[in-house]
């Protein structure tokens, strides 16, 4: 392993230590991210236990086609991200920028689809405060609204993470194009990848919880 002194910060003994430290740092950071979503999952779970019927009914009105397509888009972006890390690690630096750009584009596609979905939700009167039919939901419209509010908060917080992720990946793509990474020094790609996959993992749970809380026909 050849130490690259320009990338080695003064307080590390060698590149290996720096790489492992950065990776562990990201894992530890993801702990906090998991707990942020943990709070949201808690609110969701408690209200779902209390208001199972309303949650099932409201959930069935969300657009599962958009939700499903977006899942596939995001999973694909995880694959391209994993490939970018793999190529960076195995010294095939020429392939890294394309993989990263593709990842960022898939992330953007997710957001665009999500935007159309929100618009559709608006047209379907599924947006409390802006467009919502109090009388279409039986005795407890406030519980339906609660579900929708949690839906927007969870997907919104997820989208914010995705936007940050797209920014990070774009920067990495730029660095990769400029030939910054080597087999010995690619931890930014690795660390960025960890973050990206985490955002994907969150979505994997959001799909059944938000879109499939009730039986669809």
């Amino acid at each position: 392993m050849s130490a690259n002194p320009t990338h080695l910060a003064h307080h590390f003994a060698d590149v290996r230590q720096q790489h492992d430290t950065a990776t562990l740092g990201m894992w530890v950071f993801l702990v906090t991210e998991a707990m942020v979503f943990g709070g949201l999952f808690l609110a969701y779970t408690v209200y779902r236990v209390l208001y199972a019927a309303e949650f099932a009914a409201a959930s069935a009105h969300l657009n599962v086609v958009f939700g499903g397509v977006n899942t596939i888009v995001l999973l694909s972006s995880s694959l391209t991200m994993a490939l970018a890390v793999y190529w960076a690690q195995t010294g095939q630096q020429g392939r890294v920028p394309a993989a990263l750009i593709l990842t960022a584009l898939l992330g953007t596609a997710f957001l665009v689809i999500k935007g159309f979905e929100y618009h559709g939700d608006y047209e379907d009167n599924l947006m409390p405060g802006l467009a919502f039919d109090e009388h279409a939901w039986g005795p407890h419209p406030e519980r339906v609204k609660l579900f929708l509010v949690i839906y927007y908060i969870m997907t919104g917080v997820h989208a914010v993470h995705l936007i940050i992720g797209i920014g990070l990946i774009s920067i990495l793509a730029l660095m990769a194009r400029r030939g910054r990474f080597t087999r010995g020094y690619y931890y930014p790609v690795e660390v960025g990848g960890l973050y990206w996959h985490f955002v994907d993992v969150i979505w994997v749970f959001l799909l059944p919880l938000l879109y499939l809380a009730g039986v669809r026909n």
Partner: protein
Amino acid sequence: MAEHRSRLQIYGIVFVALIGLTAVTLLLGGVELGAWHTIVGLAIASTKATLIVLFFMHLLHSPRVTWLVAGTTLLFLAILLLMTLTDYLSRGEG
């Protein structure tokens, strides 16, 4: 190089599995499973998450401390969820 190709193959298999499981999730969305509806949905999601974490995030080949970090997270998420739910599920009892 053979080892490299096999890692690419693993990524391919994982990806196909992820897409397949997503399809199963979506198909089961229309099936009446009663109480199992949510359990199955979450079990599939957990499987997918595990695949991503183990392979895409390289947990499988990570040092013990990374496993410790991941395990701690799961433990405390469980504490947060279960110990709060204890309250809601036992209200009105006793």
